[in-house]
């Protein structure tokens, strides 16, 4: 596969999007702040304290109701009004650039903006609904970025401050990363994604910039298995699992060191279904009988910058990251893995992978 270089006929310039440089209004993800809270915490720390950017989150922000919308229980007019309320919070807070943590939300926000562009009557209707319900008014954002876009934008700055690289410290070889992009990032509107829908660059750009090698495998663009109704309808969960297995089996021959995702659902399912498969039939898909660690882009950026893996929340994954940490030469304390910041011992999971 040729993704870079002069011989490549693809003009990535066609798929470069405008990503704001500063002054972000941050909106969290329902799933991520519950399952991988270290990711969002570190994003705020990275932007605010390390990169010295202005980033703000409003405590009145709520769910976008995207899961309900894709589960066919929230009507489109309702979700438009919820999103309009978030834009109203942004306006009231004095911001124009929205930074969206969740790929599902990102898809929702962009779908609604496109709807308003092509069907202005829907915009007027939404303005009316929001005003009648809350007395609020809103503006269309000047810039809409997913938070992986923002880390992509600052990937070179992160590389310049890196303590570790995505390189095997023993062999000097680049570590192999599988990148998995959430479907709603660019498959709905390729123009909103860095690199488009088929060969997105947003995560692969981070991996290569930080020293790693991107694995291209046949099922690279296949759904992670979440697919909303595939999982939300309990009877369909076997279908969800079988989709994930399709991906794992396809990537296994390449011996990936880690999986990098930019979607809450992808991260959850590619992480936890590996545990399920191991329980069901004993199969694993990584090297030396291990499972493949599944990281968020904030977690990977944090590791590269030398942040303590347990401060990033890596211990909350089903698949543990020690094999990756060891290859990168990252120092960590086994004793502190399940301790709170003030030193109290947390519960230790009975069954996790790679330990």
């Amino acid at each position, binding site marked *: *596969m040729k*993704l870079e270089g002069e011989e*490549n006929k*693809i003009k990535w310039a066609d798929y470069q999007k405008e990503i704001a440089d500063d002054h972000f209004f941050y909106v969290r993800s329902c799933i991520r702040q519950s399952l991988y809270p270290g990711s969002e915490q570190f994003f705020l720390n990275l932007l605010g304290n390390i990169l010295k950017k202005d980033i703000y989150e409003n405590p009145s922000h709520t769910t976008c109701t995207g899961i309900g919308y894709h589960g066919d229980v929230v009507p489109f007019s309702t979700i438009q009004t919820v999103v309009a309320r978030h834009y109203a919070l942004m306006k009231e807070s004095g911001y124009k650039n929205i930074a969206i943590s969740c790929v599902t939300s990102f898809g929702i926000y962009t779908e609604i903006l496109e709807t308003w562009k092509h069907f202005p009557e829907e915009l007027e209707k939404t303005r009316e609904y929001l005003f009648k319900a809350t007395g609020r008014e809103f503006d269309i954002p000047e810039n809409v970025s997913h938070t992986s876009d923002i880390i992509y934008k600052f990937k070179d700055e992160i590389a310049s401050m890196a303590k570790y690289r995505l390189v095997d410290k023993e062999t000097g070889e680049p570590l192999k990363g599988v990148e998995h992009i959430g479907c709603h990032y660019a498959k709905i509107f390729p123009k909103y994604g860095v690199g488009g829908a088929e060969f997105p660059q947003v995560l692969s750009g981070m991996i290569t910039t930080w020293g790693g090698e991107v694995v*291209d495998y046949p*099922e690279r663009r296949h759904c992670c298995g979440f697919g909303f109704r595939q999982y939300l309808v309990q009877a369909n969960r076997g279908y969800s699992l079988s989709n994930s297995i399709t991906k794992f089996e396809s990537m296994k021959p390449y011996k990936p060191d880690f999986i990098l995702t930019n979607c809450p659902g992808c991260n959850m399912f590619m992480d936890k279904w590996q545990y399920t498969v191991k329980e069901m039939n004993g199969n694993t898909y990584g090297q030396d009988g291990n499972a493949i660690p599944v990281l968020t882009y904030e977690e990977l950026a944090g590791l590269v910058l030398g942040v303590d893996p347990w401060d990033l929340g890596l211990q909350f994954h089903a698949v543990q990251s020690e094999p990756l940490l060891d290859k990168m030469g990252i120092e960590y304390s086994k004793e502190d893995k399940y301790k709170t910041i003030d030193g109290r011992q947390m519960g230790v999971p009975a069954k996790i992978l790679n330990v």
Partner: protein
Amino acid sequence: MNKEVIVIGAGAAGMESAGQLANEGFSVKIFEKDESPGGHLKGWYHLFPNRRDSVEVMDYLLDVIDRKEIELLTNTTVTKVSKKDGKFVVTTTQNKEYNADAIIVTTGFDLFRSERKEEYGYGIYDNVITSAELEKMFRNGNLRCTDGRIPQKVGFIHCVGSRDEKVGNFYCSKLCCVSAVKQAIEIREHVPESNVFCFYMDIRMGGSGYEELYRESQQKYGVNYIRGKVSEVAENYEGKLVLKVEDTLVGKPLKMEFDMLVLMVGMEMSESGKELAVNSGLLTGENRFFAPADHHFGSNKGNVDGIFYAGACTATMNLTETLAHARSAVDDVVDYFRRKK
């Protein structure tokens, strides 16, 4: 007849119309943007349906324009044509101006840029090639994968950039189906032990001898045809191309491995034609090709009296139709001067 006619483009249509104009006694200048005449024909190997070597046609056309009444100016792109007092002024990229009494536009077509159909992996995976690149392989006698292997399993993907709303081309390019049939046969001739599959939406065999060639490809050469639009192409660990498609006749999804995939690229209005149209006020149709004044009675005429069209700058057409269209354009030029007397 002491009249000057400028022909814009030295592909098959331009060369044939120039020759016919000279036969009628006109003085002719042909402007060609490339360094040599011939257009797309230069890159082709054998022509359908009778598998004639394209060199034969090329030799004929070169002979047609090899006469004193015809002046060929290569490496010269025409950017604009303007009309004043019944005369035409042709402007080139070198900012030179030439006068003429009539114009025949033969700017032809560009092949669809396959990288726009990203899901097929052109430019990403080495052994995804275009039908035009396969012709060159045949011509050079070098049918090989990039690692030097002889391809044993080859797939043809039809309608790349044609009948595709996603890329803005609603029209059928008309010639890709029969090209695929011809090339599939040629693959089997070059590599008799190979397996060849064509993935199509509809097989459109609308020319003389086409249907017969299609049948021959199945009966004599064992080419397989699967009705289904390919959804994506990827590469597996062994470097084979993995293609996903639904066989819509059987109603089942397929995942197949190939050594080589050939994209049957469609035809689009040429970039030079587009620029000429915009700068010269020439109307184009919904398909972006030059709009004929009348589909039945004026396919060589446009919206400016004295400017005529010939060949694939007005619609997708095969070589036979192109040559006939070039001759009919000259008839219209003759009629134009007769009317002006």
